[in-house]
Every structure is written in C-alpha cells, then in structure tokens.
C-alpha cells in the first residue's frame, strides 16, 4: 500500500539551497554580467580605498619619527632658540637643527629661481637617510671647500636654471656648488607643499648667505632624538610636558612622532572618507543593477519556481535557493573586486616606487577587503530581497493555465522588513565606519531621499501615462500602455537613469565646489608674481626695475614688522612685491 515518503532516510537540507543554486547557475551567467560588474566595481573601490588608506596610515605610524625628523620636533618661526631652550633640548637627547626658508637661487648667467632652502646641522638627519646622486656622505656634499659651500638640490632646479651637477650658484651672499641631486629626503612629507625646488645646504651656508635677517621668514626646526633606552611614548610625553612646564614662554610648536604630519593624516582620512563614499555610491548604483538583474532573472524563472513549489518546495525554500544564488553571484563579483582592491597599494608602491611622495607601506590588511566584501554582500542582499520576496509568491497555477502574472506590488511583509533591516545595517555600517559621521549620515539620508523621490517621479509618470488619451497609432498606444501596465519597467528605468544622473551631477558638483573653494581662496586680483624679502633699502630700486620692464604692472607692497618682545623695537620692514 502506498504511504507517501517514508520519514526515515531524511537528512537536513542545509546544503540543498546551495546545491540547487549551483544547478541553476549551469544556465550560465547571462543576465548577471551587470550584477557581477556592479558588485565587483563597488567592492574594488572600497577595498582599494581602505587598503591604500591603511597602507598610508601604517606608513605614517611606522615612519613617524623619520617623517618628523626626530622623536620630537620644536619649531620656532622668525627666531632661533635661545640658550635656555637649546640647553633644554640637549639635556634630553641628540638635538638637530633644520632651518627652512624661501629664497632666490641665482645662476652665474643671472637666471634665478625660487627655492625652498633647508639648512641643516651635522647631526641631520636624526632618522632615515638622505639619498644623493651621486652617492656620497651628506656632510661631504654640504661641506665648505674651494671657496664654496656644497649643496644638494632637486633635479627640478637644475632644469629651471639649465644647470648641470657641479654648477655654481649664489644664495644671497653665499657661493654654492651643486654637488649632488637630492633623490630622497626623509622628512620631506612633514614640510608640506613647497613653492620651489629644495636646496639643501649646511647651517653655515645659510648664515654665510646673509639672508637670515631680523624679520626674515625662517622656520627653525629643532628635532630631538631621545636616548634609545628611554624613547618610549611615555618618555616622549614627559619631555613634551617638561617643555611646556619649564619653557612656557618659548612659543614653539611641539609635535611628536605620533603626529608627525597631522595635515597629511587628516588629508589621508578625508581622502579615505571621500573615496569610500564614492565606493558606496558605486555600490548603491550597482545595487539598482543588482535588483534589476535579479528581477529579470526571477521573471525568467517563474516556471521553474512554480515547478519547485509543485514538487514540495515552500516559498521560503524557494527564497533560500535563489537568495543563495544571489549570494554566490555577489561572491563571484566581490572576490575579484576585493583582490584587485587589496592589490592596489602593492601596484602603486611597485609602479611609483621611491617617487611616491607618501609613506605608503603596502601590506595585506585582512580587515579592509573583508569590510569591502561585507559591503558588497550586504548591498547585493539588500537590493535582491525585494524581487526575491516576489519569488516567494510565484503561483503554481502558472503551470496549469496560461495567465497574466499578477505580481503584487509589495512582497510579503517579512521580506519588506528584512529589506529595511539590511538597508539600515548598510547605512549604520557606512556611518559608523566613516571618518566624518555627519557627512556619511547626510550621504545616507540623501541616498534614501533620492530613492524615494525617483520612485515618486516614476509613479507620476505612470499616472500621467494612464490618464493620457489613447492615441490612434497602435505603436504609440502600446508604448504608452507599457509605461503604466502592471509590472511595467518604468520604476526601475526611472530609478536607474535617475540615480546614474544623480551620481554624475553629484560628482560634477563636488568637483565644481572644490574648484570654487580653491578659487575663492584666491583674491580676484591675485598677483602673478611674488617677490619676497626685498630689503627696505632696495625697495625703490626694485620698483624702478619692475616699472622699466612691465610698465602696466600693478605693484602692491606689503611690509612686515615684528616687534621684538623684549626690545620693543622695529627690526625689519620687508616688502612683498606683486606685479601683474
């Protein structure tokens, strides 16, 4: 007697969705290429950004003392450290001086170029190495011999002044021999942007140049290398505290190896945030592609889904099969995406090599690609849930009779709830991991608003098409009907096109805003040239020189005064000339 399936010989069906999903994929990936590309690109963007940022952060952390030029740096502007301050530093470790200023380097043929002068003492560099071409000890390259001080320069200076290594230039009153090309300078990043090529000379050369006058803009960097046995972070903080306590009037800027380049760190973090948001946007736009691809796929599999159900699969089982398929496909997209993204720092470091002006330490940080992978899967799941919810409700009746699919506009409530939950998880993750949560929250809110707005627009278009009078042309009538019929593609088309346009407009707006930001920082009558540190005695002669060569140029003179704190005397009146 027939008794249906025996309950013995049963096993758990945990792997069944995977097995069935794999069989479903035998049909090939047609229709899923966009899906896979969307996820791959989004994941790649996020993985690349976070891997690069981690590499830079690690570089900054590991190379902090090299970038800073010491464990601690004490910087003074316009004045040198006094005897008490020097004594304080020398008591606590090896101190080194690096003075920086801008000046004009002049070739023997009269050509001149603005240079970023860096004058160092024999202890420089405390950490890292200076690379010269040809190779030679720094002290030898900078030494005074044959009536001239030595210098190492950026190759750019040679190009600008049409010089060759070995050429002689003047810096103020000092005669300088260019003895080497400076190929690597360990503490360069912390110097920030330069306005001219580097001219590395000795402290003696700078003093011999006569450029260091009262009021001259010179930044005096005193770097301190703590003793090896006492160079812990605690010891470092103790020195900083002592400096503030014992020399409260010094007015120097204190930095430690832990924040060797705050500006760079901030830039790296902002860059990470901005690009992460770009990556998320890519994923978001890709999510619409995912939803469309899944909907298209499921529409084509309604018969198979109905067959599964006729053979004993519940709606939940059907959902599990196709959800697994979506996750497998998302994985297929995410894995190459994260591999490429994780490899990017290595590629950048390899291709740019020492020319990279950033302390990039390429390393595999599993957390970064893992996070990108999670973002990819979450996006795929969030956007696939809605169409998958419809699969839950595919009627088996389609197998018995031809019928127009009367798909409900909303999937069953659990799928709506799950979609909202996953969407919220994605949003919270994006906000929580952002550098600036406020911006990330605005981004998320804007994304949701755009979705809602575009859906409303689609609804309006459908309503308008429904109310239009029926045209005579069958072609136009059919086209209109396709806009508003049940299951019309109008919402997904409007969403895809609208979101794509929104992203393009956003990118263009951001670019425009950035440009305006930079331009706004410049006054309308921004000078074409700056001439700095013109001695007051030469001001008249300088004016005459300019008038003779550019009679229509407008000259603006800005004088700078510094009131010496103790002597209460005006020590300088330098001119900043501007010609246009």
């Amino acid at each position: 007697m027939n008794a249906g399936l025996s309950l013995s010989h049963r096993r758990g069906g945990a792997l069944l969705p995977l097995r069935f999903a794999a069989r479903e994929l035998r049909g090939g990936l047609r229709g899923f290429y966009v899906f896979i590309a969307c996820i791959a690109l989004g994941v790649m963007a996020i993985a690349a950004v976070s891997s690069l940022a981690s590499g830079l952060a690690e570089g900054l952390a590991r190379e902090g003392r090299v970038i800073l030029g010491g464990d601690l740096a004490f910087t003074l502007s316009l004045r040198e450290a006094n005897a008490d301050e020097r004594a304080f530093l020398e008591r606590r470790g090896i101190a080194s001086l690096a003075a920086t200023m801008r000046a004009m380097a002049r070739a023997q043929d009269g050509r001149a170029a603005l240079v970023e002068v860096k004058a160092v003492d024999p202890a420089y560099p405390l950490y890292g190495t200076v690379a010269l071409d040809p190779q030679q000890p720094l002290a030898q390259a900078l030494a005074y011999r044959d009536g001239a001080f030595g210098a190492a320069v950026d190759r750019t200076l040679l190009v600008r002044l049409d010089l060759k290594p070995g050429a002689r230039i003047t810096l103020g009153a000092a005669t300088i021999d260019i003895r080497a090309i400076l190929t690597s300078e360990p503490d360069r990043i912390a110097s920030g942007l330069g306005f001219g090529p580097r001219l590395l000379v000795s402290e003696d050369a700078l003093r011999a140049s006569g450029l260091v006058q009262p009021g001259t803009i010179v930044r005096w960097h005193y770097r301190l290398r703590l003793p090896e046995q006492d160079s812990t972070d605690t010891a470092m903080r103790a020195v900083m505290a002592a400096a503030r306590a014992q020399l409260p009037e010094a007015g120097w800027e204190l930095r430690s190896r832990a924040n060797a380049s705050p500006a760079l760190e901030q830039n790296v973090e902002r860059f990470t945030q901005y690009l992460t948001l770009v990556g998320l946007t890519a994923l978001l736009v890709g999510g619409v592609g995912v939803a469309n691809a899944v909907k298209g796929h499921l529409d084509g599999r309604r018969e198979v889904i109905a067959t599964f159900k006729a053979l004993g699969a519940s709606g939940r089982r059907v959902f599990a099969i196709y959800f697994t398929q979506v996750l497998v496909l998302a994985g297929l997209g995410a894995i190459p995406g994260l591999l490429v993204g994780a490899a990017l720092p290595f590629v950048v470091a390899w291709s740019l090599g020492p020319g990279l002006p950033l302390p990039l330490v390429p390393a595999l940080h599993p957390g970064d690609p893992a996070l990108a992978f999670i973002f990819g899967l979450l996006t795929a799941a969030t956007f696939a849930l809605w169409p998958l919810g419809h699969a839950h409700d595919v009627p088996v009746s389609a197998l018995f009779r031809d019928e127009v699919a009367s798909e409900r506009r909303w999937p069953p409530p659990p799928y709506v709830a799950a979609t909202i939950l996953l969407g919220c998880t994605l949003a919270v993750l994006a906000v929580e991991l952002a550098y600036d949560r406020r911006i990330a929250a605005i981004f998320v809110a804007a994304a949701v608003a755009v979705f809602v707005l575009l859906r409303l627009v689609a609804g309006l278009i459908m309503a308008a098409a429904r109310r239009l009078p029926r045209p005579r042309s069958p072609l136009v009538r059919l086209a209109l009907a396709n806009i508003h019929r049940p299951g019309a593609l109008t919402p997904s088309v409007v969403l895809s096109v609208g979101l794509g346009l929104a992203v393009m407009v956003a990118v263009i707006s951001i670019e425009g805003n950035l440009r305006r930001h930079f331009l706004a920082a410049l006054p309308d009558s921004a000078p074409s040239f700056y001439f700095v540190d013109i001695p007051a005695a030469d001001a008249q002669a300088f004016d005459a020189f300019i008038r003779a060569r550019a009679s229509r140029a407008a000259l603006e003179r800005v004088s700078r005064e510094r009131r010496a704190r103790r002597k209460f005397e005006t020590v300088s009146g330098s001119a900043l000339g501007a010609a246009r």
Partner: protein
Amino acid sequence: MQANVWTRAAQVPYDRDNAGPPATEGRKEQRNMQDTSGSGRAEPAVVLSGVNLSLGRGAARVHILKDLDLHIDRGEAIGLLGPSGSGKSTLLMVMAGLERIDTGSVVVAGEALDALSEDALARFRGRNIGIVFQSFHLIPTMTALENVAVPLELAGLDDAHERAARELAAVGLSGRRQHYPAELSGGEQQRVALARALAPDPRILIADEPTGNLDEGTGAEIIDLLFAGHAQRGTTLVLVTHDPALALRCDRTVRLRSGRIEAVPDGAPAGAKP
C-alpha cells in the same frame, strides 16, 4: 519495495518479451486489496465538500468552482472531463493544495488542507501529491536524474539520487540520466516528468492532460506508463483529459461544466460519486 514492483510493470512497453496486460490486472489487484481492507470501503483519498472558489479581483473576479462535492476513493482512477474553462485545472490545484478555496472543505489523504500553513502544505504536497503536467515542466538546468530527484531532495532523502535512478529505469530512461531536458524528445521528457511525479510514492497522482503535447503513439506509451504506475503502487489517479476514450480507462469519469459536476450519463463505466 513498491518501486521495484512497478519498475517491472512499467518496463513492459519496452520489453516485449515480458509484455502483458499488467495495468489492468494491477488495477484489479489494487481494487481487491482495497476490498479486503476490513470495512468494505477504504479511507477516501479526496473529499471535497461544498467547495467554492473565485479567482481574480474586482470586476475581473470569476467564480470558478461552485458548490462542488466530490469523493474519490483511495486507489481509484478518475477521469476528469470538461470543456476548456470548466474548472478542471482549478479543481486539480485545489486537490494539490495549490489554491485556497473560498468556502467548503478539502480533505486529501486524511488531511484537511485548509488548516495547513503554506510550509506544511508544501511538505504535504511533496510527500503525497505527484503532478504530471501537459508541458512537462522539467527544470532545464538539471539533468533527467536530477529532475527526478528534486522532490526527493526537497523531502530531505539521503538516497534521492539512487531512488531517482530506479524511477528513471522504470520508465526506460536509464541511458538518459545525464541528459538535460533540451536533449530529450517530448516523449522522453514526459517520461522523466512521470518518473519525477511518482518518485516520492505519492498517494495521489494528478495528471493534467499528460498527452496534450505528444503525438498519438508517444502519448499512448505515456498513458500506459501512467496507468501502470497507478496500478502497481495503488496510487489514486486523477486524470484530466479531453479524450473520452482515455477517460474510459479510468474507474470513473467526472464531467465538469461551468464549475459544477455534471450528472454522469447512463452507460458510463463507473458512476460519479459526488
């Protein structure tokens, strides 16, 4: 094992040396088994009472099944006849638990389907109902063997593929296990579909015009297999057909018109028992 018994019977059309009339004899055998069950009347396979069902919404809503009563004994084979739109397919779906009724009650294999949740209905269907469609509805990305194994795998059986292989052998398709539906002829596809429907040893086998897409000769082979399976396993068979001659092979004929069961004409091979 049931499947082995049927395997021998079902191979008849392909094994002329062992040819015989197993379907008819098997059916008699089954009827005799029922008769000796003790009470004189076996537990009914399907009982529909006062079933009403409408489909569609608003102005498009159509009353398909109207106050329908039907009683089908276990092991019985009934032919369901009627013009297009009379409600035959809908009636099959109601029996299979694929369509919820508006009023009335549906009891299949002793289970009141109205009381079951969607998941429970799916499990019930997987265990108790086998369906053969006119258009086969094989899953194109699965081999013949995998297609037959689907209901067994959904039911969580460890030996799904072994059982599926036996079912395929029973319909004479051992050599086609690894073929995909697109690589099979229409007749072969329907045989795979029949093997799939019978693989879980269902209590009720529903066939919706199973020869509708086949030529006459191939259709006859399928019908022989269908009746052989019914007879050897004691499965209740509900066969929808437009062919009165085919309906005559059933124990009883039920004719539907406009959602109601018509009175059975005199001279029918078996009386309707609404």
